[in-house]
């Protein structure tokens, strides 16, 4: 064996052990009736796990919840992030300070954010419902109707800063001259935003959207820390559903199959992301 192969051998072995083996093993599990409670009786089921999942109401509900969460949270973050970025860019004083403060939520671990909001929004103990009650508004943030929306708000609180960061960088990288041309051309601020800023920022927006969407698909911590998928199945998102199937009900075969479906969806997004970045 030549030297170069010997040099990469340790890394190859390491990667095989920590990446390839689990991946192949879980693919194998996803094709079997693999229950942690019945390890003496593992049977091959072919694609039955996959077929079963697609007809399984709880899975489809979890998928719907997740898609709604992704769409809601990410569009909220997009609008807020872009708005804040445009305002911040114009800020003359305290700009660095404002940036630092606005970016802070991003650096908190999500499980802590989940716990924090669980208390702040709790209908019995929370400060926010308390003050809303003083204003005559009784809102139960974690009721069946509102819980998923509340989770979107929490996600937006934590991840809008990411969008803000991307858009600020994007805005600063834009050439100044088209904006001066727009001024001379007599465009109103609104027209300049729609016809100059937004189209020129498009590649950045696309990339930010996809990165956030990928991340939002994996939402787990808020659900785990706050609602545990409830009330009922109102906030049961896909990752939480997989977790429950695998580690509560010990049905590893199905859980693995779901995980692979999630990977497939993610991969599609990644492919779009790459082609979007290439086009830029």
């Amino acid at each position: 064996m030549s030297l170069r192969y010997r040099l990469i051998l340790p890394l190859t072995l390491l990667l095989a052990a920590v990446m390839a083996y689990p991946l192949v093993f879980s693919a194998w599990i996803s094709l079997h009736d693999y229950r942690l409670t019945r390890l003496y009786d593992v049977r091959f089921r072919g694609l039955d796990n996959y077929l079963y999942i697609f007809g399984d109401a709880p899975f489809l509900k979890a998928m719907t919840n997740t898609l709604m969460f992704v769409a809601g949270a990410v569009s909220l973050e997009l609008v807020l992030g872009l708005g804040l970025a445009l305002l911040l860019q114009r800020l003359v004083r305290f700009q660095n300070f404002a940036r630092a403060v606005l970016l802070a939520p991003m650096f908190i671990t999500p499980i802590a954010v989940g716990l924090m909001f669980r208390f702040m929004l709790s209908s019995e103990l929370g400060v926010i419902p308390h003050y809303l009650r003083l204003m005559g508004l009784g809102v139960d943030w974690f009721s069946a109707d509102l819980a998923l929306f509340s989770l979107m708000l929490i996600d937006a609180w934590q991840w809008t800063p990411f969008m803000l960061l991307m858009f600020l960088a994007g805005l600063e990288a834009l050439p100044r001259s088209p904006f001066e041309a727009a001024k001379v051309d007599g465009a109103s601020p609104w027209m300049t935003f729609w016809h100059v800023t937004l189209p020129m920022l498009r590649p950045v927006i696309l990339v930010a959207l996809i990165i956030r969407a990928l991340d939002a698909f994996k939402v787990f911590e808020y659900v785990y820390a706050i609602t545990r998928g409830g009330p009922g199945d109102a906030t049961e998102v896909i990752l939480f559903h997989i977790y429950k199937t695998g580690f509560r009900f010990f049905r590893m075969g199905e859980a693995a199959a779901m995980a692979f479906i999630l990977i497939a969806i993610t991969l599609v997004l990644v492919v779009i992301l790459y082609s979007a970045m290439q086009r830029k």
Partner: protein
Amino acid sequence: MAGVRLKDLSKSFGAVEVLKGIDLTVEPHEFAVLLGPSGCGKSTTLRMLAGLEPATAGEIWIGERNVTNLEPRERDIAMVFQNYALYPHMTIAQNMGFGLKARKLPAAEIAERVKTAAEMLGITDLLGRRPRELSGGQQQRVAIGRAIVREPSLFLFDEPLSNLDAKLRVEMRTELLQLHRSLDATTVYVTHDQEEAMTMADRIVVMNKGRIEQIGSPSEIYFRPASLMVAGFIGSPAMNFVDGTVSDGKVGTPIGAISAPSLPGDGTKVTIGFRPDDFYFPDDLPEEETAATLSFSVRFVELLGARGIVTMRAGDTDFKAIFEERFLHRFEEGATVPLSLARDRLHLFLKETGERVAPDAA
């Protein structure tokens, strides 16, 4: 069409004073060129005219309106930027029509005007493309097209030809001039290329270090430069200079005494300037027209074609002279050649202030 008036216009960026009191009137229909070395404030002046930079002090009038505090879109101007400043994501047609769209013209009329302008500029077949698919010269035309569809009362150009190759530049110069004639709009045009200024301008405004040095027609600027700076800046190769002191109706210089008309008083320190084409062979110039006959030792000759530039030395200064090719054999390297200067071709400046003293400014 509107004229332009700048009244005591000043501009500072922080503590740096970039424009120091600019007074300028541009008549309606005039093609005025701002000319000056890099960093003298030409672009700043133009950008203030456009409303892209606020004035620190002074007033800007376009036509009968004081526009000093108006937004660009209220000034009825069109500007061609040095770097074209096209909208990268729009097609050429959209680029050209954007200003009309901002003025809420009906789409049919926009299309019509864009088409007319495109035909005029010969870019009709480019209308569907995007700026990055165009060459520099084509983008240039688009930028000009975007300005002319607007039919503004004032055109502003910021070094629009500086990115083009020499041949295209000369072609575009002619096209721009024709355009100016046919549109008959008032134009303020910035360049640091003196040839461009000389060939295009009705009037040249020479700027230096944030001030106006001289305003005049191209021939006034060339034949009667108002200051040492203008004299040295205009003309290529540059004017020759020699310092001296006035005494007895002559100027005593290190290379010999030079007589000149209308001299200031004795003892005044002056700088005499004469252009490279203003050397004569002593026999060719009548006695009474001769300011001085001096000897020069030839250093080298550069042949340009029909003419050549002779670099020669007198005292410890180099002088450049231009002669037709058939005379160049007289300038062998190392030879000493007597040459005369004509009285009516001399320019006299006060050494201290650089101000022109003789012959008087026109």
